[in-house]
Each structure stands twice: as structure tokens, then as C-alpha cells.
């Protein structure tokens, strides 16, 4: 396995071009959380021609809805949710400048096409590792849709947040590579 790469947000076009499916990375910097309900609102906002509450250009969205923070905690457990539910919305956001997505699980062909076309990247974090991942979050604030509770959009500052490149900017998909290699056995 290749050694772990360190990435700092915002990701540059060059950073993204150099990442390959299967590589482990540690991400440091600002990322946003958004999941089902926030994505629905994002896309409705875009179709009304209005401005989004976050700046998408160069951003990374983490598909996650945390547990509430206990007193003294920055954030509660925060692992990734299944990305496929965001597939109907993701191509539109990528087109608007979104560069990175962190989640878990399969993506649609439309999302993979958008990733290739706009030089974006899809990472997986370890599903179910919510307690461990919360330790890598150094700051958290709600920046939009507070009424959605856990589904609100949060701006997180993460440090050495562990992830794996699943779909790179050439469209290589780690999950497909695994499936093909196991069926050829």
C-alpha cells in the first residue's frame, strides 16, 4: 500500500489530479457537513437562482449527521452516512464548484461522470467509526439550516481526518476494482 498522503483544504486542482483510488489520506482544514435534507435544500436554492448559504467553490462536503455534543465536547460521534442517497443532488453541486465529497458506499454513474468532468474527488471515511472520527474534529459551528438538527450544515475544522480515495478524477473506482478482482479469482 502507498503511504498516507496529507492534504490541506481547500484542495487545489493539482492535489486532486495527483490522488489515486485506493490511497489513504489525512485531511486537515475546513470541511462542511451536509446530508439528505440539506442537499435537497441546496438544489432547490440553486434551481430558484438564489445564493447558497455556503461557498461551494473548492469545498469538501462530508456526508454526516453527528450525535449531539456533550458539555465540553466539540462534537459528538460523527461517522459518514451512505453517499448514494446524495447521488441525485451531487452532480449539480460538483458543477457549481464542489471539489470533494466524503462519505461511504457506492456512487452512481452520473456522479462518477461529474467527478471526471470537473476534476473532483470522492473519499470514504470508515463507516461506524463515529467516536474515533469525532476526535479529529477541532471546531464545529452550524452555518445553515439549524432547524434540521443533526442534518444542519456545519463548518468543521478537522485535523488529520483519515479517509481513503475511492473515486479519483480519472473515474477509477476502488469498489469496482475490488469487485472485478474478486470475480476474476
Amino acid at each position: 500500500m502507498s503511504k498516507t498522503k496529507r492534504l490541506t483544504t481547500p484542495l487545489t486542482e493539482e492535489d486532486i489530479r495527483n490522488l489515486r483510488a485506493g490511497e489513504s489520506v489525512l485531511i486537515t482544514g475546513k470541511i462542511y457537513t451536509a446530508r439528505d435534507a440539506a442537499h435537497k435544500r441546496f438544489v432547490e436554492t440553486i434551481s430558484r437562482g438564489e445564493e447558497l448559504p455556503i461557498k461551494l467553490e473548492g469545498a469538501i462536503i462530508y456526508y454526516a449527521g453527528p450525535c449531539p455534543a456533550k458539555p465540553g465536547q466539540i462534537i459528538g460521534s460523527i461517522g459518514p452516512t451512505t453517499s448514494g442517497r446524495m447521488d441525485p443532488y451531487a452532480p449539480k453541486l460538483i458543477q457549481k464548484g464542489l471539489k470533494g465529497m466524503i462519505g461511504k458506499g457506492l456512487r452512481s454513474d452520473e456522479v462518477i461522470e461529474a467527478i471526471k468532468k470537473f476534476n473532483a474527488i470522492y473519499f470514504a471515511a470508515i463507516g461506524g467509526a463515529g467516536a474515533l472520527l469525532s476526535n479529529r474534529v477541532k471546531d464545529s459551528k452550524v452555518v445553515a439550516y439549524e432547524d434540521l438538527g443533526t442534518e444542519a450544515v456545519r463548518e468543521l475544522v478537522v485535523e488529520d481526518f483519515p479517509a481513503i480515495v475511492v473515486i479519483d478524477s480519472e473515474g477509477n473506482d476502488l469498489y469496482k476494482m475490488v469487485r472485478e478482482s474478486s470475480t476474476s479469482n
Partner: protein
Amino acid sequence: MGDIARVREVNVDDVRKVVAELAIHANCFIGDDIIHKLEEGREEEESSLAKNVLTQILENARIARECNMPACQDTGMAVVFLEIGQDIHFVGGDLYDAINEGVSEGYIKGYLRKSVVKEPYTDRINTGNNTPTIIHTEIVPGNKVKISIAPKGFGSENMSQLKMFKPADGVDEIIEFVLNVVREAGPNPCPPVVLGIGIGGTMEKASLMAKKALLRRLDEPNPDEEVRRLEERLLKLVNELGIGPQGFGGKTTALGINIEVFPTHIAGLPVAVNVSCHATRHESTVI
């Protein structure tokens, strides 16, 4: 009427308290049976990525346990099973209200995520306290009540399937169906998974057995020899699929497969597969 003396009163307020404690505990403490299977899997994996993923999952379970934090942010929809002794008389209020109050209290006091929405296909407004609870009751002999809680995350729940087979179909068709469920789910249900499988009964009986099978420890095979052999055979075949931890490839696709069976109709053969994740959680107490 001599038996009337055996009737025991249980105050529903005690049920509420127990449910609240179980909800918090179940979410923060991954069972030692699962931990052992994860450790075994890590030993067997050859790729450093698969080993690394299992190490992080084990580390996560340790942090959750030591910091009393939910292992997974999806603290689930709370599924409560009650095995109620027929000689119990519940007093002090409505039993189901008490269970829902217990879940609400546990999820609020335990800083667990509230993941339940009121309208399933329209507004989807969060109920704010993780209720209503899914409650299954069973009447059993005796004057005790066993309360189990199994918080169920939906990353894996969404990958579950039910199929009504024809009686002409046999064990090979059932095996192929289960393997397909796991293949189709791929990385989505956070493998390594745990599968609960119900074979027989009616449509809802098969599903309920599949769910209940997830409450059984992974080191406790089905007591029926033939069913136990099917559990072992399926586990081996699932782990040969190569999906591996988190779908990144490897030998540890499932940690365990628990099967429950029940007689069925001359015309049918229902099979339900309830997919669960490496954070398969359940806690029980007897009052």
C-alpha cells in the same frame, strides 16, 4: 385459581428506567463477541488496508467504551423486544408510553442522535426524541419480563431484503439469494456485516425472525445442528466474496450469520435477510 398468587406486579416506571439505561449502554458498548470476531478478522487479513480498517474499527469501539460515546453516530431507530411472562401484571400506567418515555430519556440524556422522522413519505419532520419506538412483544411462561433493545442503523437496514421463494426452491437458491444481498449491498452497510436471517413462517414472521436473530451473540450458533451448519456454510461463502472491511477488499465481509427458522405454509418459503453492521448493538435486562 391457585396460580393467582404467582401473578407479579411490575411498575411500568421500572420499565422506563431500564429502557433509558439500556439505550445509552447499547450504543456505547460494542459486545465482546463482536470485538473478538473483529480481532480474528484482523489476524486473517493480508492487505494492509483491510488490517488498517479493522484496527480503526477496534480503536473506535475502545474510544466509545472508555469515553461513554456512541460507537456510531447513527444511534438507530430503537427496536425493543419484550418477553413478557404471562403471570405479570403491569401497573402504574401505559406500558408502551413507558417504553417510549424511556427511549426519549435515554436518547436525550445519553446525547444520542435523534434519527426518527414523523411522516415517512411527506414532510419528514424529526420527532426530536427518537420515538416512536419499534416494539415487539412476546408472551412467555413465568412472571418475569425480559427487555432487550437493539438500536438499528439504517445504512445497513436499507440493504435488507425479503424474498418469497417457491417450495421447489431449496437451500442452494436461499444461499444464492443471501450472497446476492451482500453483493448488492457492497460497501454501503459498513462491512464487516452481521446478518440476521429468518427462514419460514409468513412474510412478517420471516422478517421478525431475521431482526431477532441479530440479538443472538455471534459465539452462540443456532442449537439445531442443520441450521448451525447452514450458518457456517453461509459465513464461509460470504467471506469468499472478497468485499472485505468497508468494501475495500479482503476476507472479513461478515463477522457472523445468525439464522432462525419456523414452519411455513405448503405453498411457500419466505426468506428475510436483515443486514446489520460491525456496530450491531443489543442489550438486555430481566426484571
